[in-house]
């Protein structure tokens, strides 16, 4: 990794004009894993100092500034109040405090990292993202896109709704990347299931979700069938942490567990 210029901007507008001006300009967020990317960066744009690190409630949404650190997210009582605190639960399982004090939620989401523990629970909470230029877009839609982002993520917005949530991540050691993670929520009678670190980026198990909502009885059999549906619709891959086949088995186990938890 090589950086030619470091720019601490004084406004989002300034940051955006730098991005527009050069294809080799990048927002650096926390920068914790910047050195792992081989790219050469012309302008590294630092957004700290723009007040983008607050966590507030606004208009029925919890709004997390994109520059909030993972540690801030994990410790936030507001975020903890959402669906059994699954976002905090996921955040606190990411590496150590010394990293979570650097890495930001915006950086995590923009990276669309397959190994992310944080994106998976956010996907089952109807999370939306607010960009400077593009405005609002749902996280699920954003994750589905492949185009490179040339915009500035400002806020992560989570609707404040009552519901049950469950998250689990399977790791070899506590600070490792997951072999697989899964999050399940049940909000307003609707079920959502997301599976991440497949090792590809997180996805919703749409067919399994639909199946659960049509189940007459939310019992063990329903969970079992939903899990089978999920492993049939989701694609898994192999890496040094586990094979595609093992991930499939984990997915089945986790989806079952998650459903049992949120349906009970």
């Amino acid at each position, binding site marked *: *990794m*090589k*950086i*030619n*210029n*470091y720019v*601490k901007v004084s406004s989002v507008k300034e940051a955006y004009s730098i991005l527009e001006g050069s294809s080799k300009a990048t927002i*650096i967020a926390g*920068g*914790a*894993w*910047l*050195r*792992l990317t081989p790219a050469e*960066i012309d302008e*590294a744009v*630092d957004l*700290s100092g723009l007040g983008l690190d607050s966590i507030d409630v606004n208009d029925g949404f919890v709004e997390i500034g994109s520059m909030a650190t993972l*540690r801030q997210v994990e410790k936030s009582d507001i975020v903890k109040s959402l669906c059994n605190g699954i976002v905090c639960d996921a955040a*606190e399982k990411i*590496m*150590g*405090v*010394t*990293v979570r*004090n*650097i890495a930001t939620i915006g950086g995590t989401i923009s990276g669309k990292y397959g190994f992310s523990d944080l994106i998976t629970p956010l996907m089952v909470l109807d999370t939306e993202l607010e960009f400077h230029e593009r405005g609002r877009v749902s996280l699920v839609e954003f994750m589905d896109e492949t185009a490179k982002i040339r915009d500035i993520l400002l806020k992560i917005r989570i609707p404040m709704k009552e519901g049950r949530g469950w998250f689990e991540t399977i790791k070899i050691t*506590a*600070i490792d990347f997951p072999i697989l993670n899964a999050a399940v929520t049940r909000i307003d009678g609707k079920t959502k299931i997301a599976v991440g670190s497949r090792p590809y980026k997180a996805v919703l198990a749409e067919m399994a979700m639909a199946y659960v909502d049509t189940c007459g009885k939310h019992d063990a059999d329903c969970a079992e069938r939903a899990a089978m549906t999920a492993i049939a619709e989701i694609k898994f891959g192999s890496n040094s942490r586990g094979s595609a086949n093992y991930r499939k088995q984990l997915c089945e186990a986790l989806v079952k567990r998650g459903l049992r938890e949120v349906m009970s």
Partner: protein
Amino acid sequence: MKIKLKVNGENKVFDVKADEYLLDTLRKNNYVSVRRGCDNTSCGVCTVLINGNPAASCSYLSCKADGKEITTVEGIPEEAAKIAGFFGREGADQCGFCNPSMALTVYAMKKELVNPTDDDIRSYLVGNLCRCSGYQGQHRAIKAYLEVE
């Protein structure tokens, strides 16, 4: 570019490159207690406090630190000596390479958490790896330090 840091209470100006990391800036300027272990946020031996929060200096751009307060273990000599006393009693010092980072993280934890449980302690320090001690002696030492302090 030039950055201003307050290191251990002293105002400093350093000339750094855009892609220089805080670990390199500090070591170059003789803060040798800040150590290089893995260079990718995985081990914790490069920990410093940035505005009081423990952070991996190997992966924190020096430019980003501009205007911030940095504490290395040289900045908390009394606390480090106390913590060392507890580590010593439990045979937990061993090679010592990671110990300045342990002292800083334990010190920050003491300020941040009230009456941490065993699990809280493990969670807070999970990113500070140690290959020598097997962690048990450290855990006993940290608990004893928190009880006394």
